[in-house]
């Protein structure tokens, strides 16, 4: 392991405990501090993905497609956010006959909460980091995968053939793309020599090369661009956006697993999807783009800029790229991405073993 000085070895709950003096109340104080920290982070993420996200998505897509989008209520149509929230929550919750009840109700919760949980281990800069376990990277992938369970449950429990097809597609897609995703991430682990998120970030802090006085940091996107591209592609499939939005495929299977969901349940699924895109962006940021690192501005600002940039990228792909067919998607996953990701892993291992170690 390369010697370095960890940037943030103090996670947010400890810091809150320290600042508020909760630390002296023992376990209970720690618990309250942790709860407060989680509350802050969750609200930050919800504000971004649940509140700003749908509005920004409308505006971004409109910009790509020569439209204006929301502009009637409030400046830049911003008040559409509360208006839409009230509208969505006020809708009647229709539960079709014959649905598999507890499963049907649990699925939206699983989808939304699993994505939320992943942010716990993401270092967001300025000490905003809920937990920093040694196995952070594995944990975040494990958590993100739980969403697939939610999708399959929603598809199965809805008692609708389109939902069923969507759920099955979601499972097939996630299996096909999560392996390349994780294998590609493993190549980063070889570089960094650790699974701990804060240390992966720290490992990217050193300058890679200095050109004309500007030093380019050794972000893994620059060190291993091939892995970065692979990871971005697999991530698109993981979050189910074009060209890999096969599980929803509105023109083919109506809305896939979410066909039968309305009102609050629909909001939860929709929120889960947005959170998932942001979580995917946060993982990319952390392991390829140096996490919160950046000049002048505070770390958290850089972190937000980076995840929004990746969000923008998904919306761009959504506007411009056709959807692949399910069999083509599976083929790309198993025959293309899997092979490439293993090639990348082996190559990285050799390079690191021979030249760096």
């Amino acid at each position: 392991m390369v010697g370095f000085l960890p940037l943030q070895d103090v996670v947010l709950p400890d810091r809150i405990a320290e600042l508020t003096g909760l630390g002296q109340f023992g376990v209970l104080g720690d618990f309250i501090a942790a709860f407060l920290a989680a509350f802050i982070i969750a609200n930050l993420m919800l504000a971004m993905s649940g509140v700003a996200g749908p509005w920004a998505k409308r505006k971004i897509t409109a910009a790509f497609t020569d439209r204006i989008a929301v502009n009637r209520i409030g400046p830049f149509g911003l008040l559409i956010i509360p208006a839409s929230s009230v509208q969505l929550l006020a809708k009647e919750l229709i539960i079709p006959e014959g649905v598999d009840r507890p499963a049907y109700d649990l699925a939206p919760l699983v989808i939304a909460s699993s994505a939320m949980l992943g942010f716990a281990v993401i270092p967001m800069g300025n000490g905003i980091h809920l937990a920093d376990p040694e196995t952070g990277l594995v944990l975040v992938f494990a958590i993100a995968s739980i969403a697939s369970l939610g999708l399959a449950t929603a598809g199965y429990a809805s008692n609708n053939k389109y939902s069923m097809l969507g759920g099955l597609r979601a499972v097939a897609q996630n299996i096909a793309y999560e392996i390349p995703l994780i294998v590609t991430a493993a190549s980063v682990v070889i570089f960094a020599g650790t699974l701990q998120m804060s240390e992966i970030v720290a490992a990217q802090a050193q300058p890679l090369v200095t050109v004309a006085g500007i030093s380019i940091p050794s972000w893994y996107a620059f060190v291993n661009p091939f892995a970065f591209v692979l990871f971005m592609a697999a991530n698109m499939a993981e979050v189910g956006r074009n060209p890999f939005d096969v599980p929803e495929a509105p023109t083919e299977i109506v809305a896939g697993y979410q066909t039968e969901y309305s009102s609050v349940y629909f909001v939860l699924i929709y929120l889960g999807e947005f959170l998932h895109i942001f979580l995917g962006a946060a993982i990319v940021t952390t392991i390829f783009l140096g996490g919160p690192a950046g000049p002048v501005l505070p770390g958290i600002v850089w972190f937000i800029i980076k995840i929004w940039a990746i969000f923008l990228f998904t919306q761009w792909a959504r506007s411009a790229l056709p959807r692949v067919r399910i069999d083509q998607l599976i083929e790309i996953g198993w025959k293309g991405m899997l092979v490439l990701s293993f090639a990348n892993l082996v190559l990285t291992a050799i390079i690191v073993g021979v030249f760096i170690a």
Partner: protein
Amino acid sequence: MSLERPRPDQSYVTDDGVDYDAIEELLGEHVLGRETHINAEGFVIRPDEVQEVLFALRDQAGFDHLSVVTAQEYGDRYESIYHLKKYDDPTQELSVVVPTSKDNPVSQTAEPVYRTADWHEREAYDLVGIEYEGHPDPRRILLPETWQGHPLSLDYDQDRPQIVTLTEHANPIADDHYESESDTMFLNIGPHHPATHGVLHLKAVLDGEQVVDVDPDIGYLHRCEEQMAQQGTYRHQIMPYPDRWDYAPGGLMNEWGYARAAEDLADIEVPEYAQVIRTLGAELCRICSHMLALGTFCLDIYGDFTAIFMYAMRDREKVQSLLEDLTGSRMMFNYLRLGGVAWDLPEPREEFFEKTRDFLDDLPEATQEYHDLITSNEIFQIRTIDTGVLEPEVAKQYGATGPVARASGIDYDLRRDDPYGYYPELDWDVATDDGCDNYARLLVRMQEVEQSAKIIEQCIDVLESWPEEDREIQSNVPRTLRPEADTEIYRAVEAAKGELGIYIRADGTDKPARFKIRSPCFSNLHTLPEMSEGEYIADLIASLGSLDIILGEVDR
């Protein structure tokens, strides 16, 4: 011709067209009598010899295109008319008239000879009540299975309420094709589904994601257009209806379909100046229609409202505003009149010309953008190339026309092959492609947009230099038209979707006795099962999009 195949015997053709006497000789004693329709000779045959006669006409005389089957009821008999044509030369026409008795209206099916007869005969049974012996699927097609009576038959009581209760309907969910041994799944795609381009119901049987069987269920948008036309007077009351068939909008082309048939029936001349305006308007409509086809086809491949859909809509909007300037309407034009058009170009003319030229100048850039965005996209190519394959011979069997046929390498375009309007004077090409797949259909439409632009450009030049004193937009047409009794005509134009034909039988009054619409979408949709069985459900949706059907025209 891009299509190689043995040429049929030329002995049934003279320099003037079909050698009807030679054909009478060919058919020998099958011929009970001959009728003269304005467009072609009609051969009257026995109802139990339909297949024999049609086989002979198809294989020996080369009539490989069954345009439409018209069914009608007379006071003393029922009659099915098979309007035959040749894909090589659609001016060579022939009608086979099959009378059946009142008390036993049974006629032999033509389905083994022409696959397209399947749907046409179902419609004939549904609306008129003729039964076709040996038909593989003798169900109603437009009306519900529980419908009582046949609406276009003479003794049908329109005022009697139909008692079609919900329980009498076959419940689409109940019949699940479920067998414990079978792995297939029955899936209702539509009538409410994002990708059915209207209200279409596809009864699909899936094996996993693959389509085992698909059965289009149409008629949700049936508005009795034929009957309404039969209740309107030739002069003014029928013209608004064609706008409601293909409302993509193909309005002016549809109106021209009616105008052409009625003008030939009543022997009305159209001033050349009006023909140029008609040509201009029809091609504007074609661009509009193809832009919508392109946009919605991509919608099926991309999902949601993506860039390409909005770009196509953006450019279509420009044409719509041109059409609005010309006709005063964006969709339901009602602009053509028998013997001309309703009014001249909008004043100031220079402004209209300039606006049209601006659009034409911007069009190459727009099409290039489409090519950059879609046709050269590799994902788009793997999705569309070699999917939804429609072989040329199959396309002919189903009576496919328009871009669907031309993308299967069938060089068939009525604007050139059966000239009308101002097309023969202009310099343009028929776009064809040998790809036979979804991609080829898209390419053909994109090329046709370019060709239409070329036609419009020339029309604008012609109109601009037209001397002011000769701008005759309407010929003298009697206030009330009463074409001679028992004159019959079938005339077609090349609409955006293909051959749009109108059959009219006059009975001496000012309203048609029978008004039959040959809808190109109807025949094109019939090819869907052939294209998509064995393919993935995603390709079924893409193929449906590539057919560019407008349900208003399918169901009429």
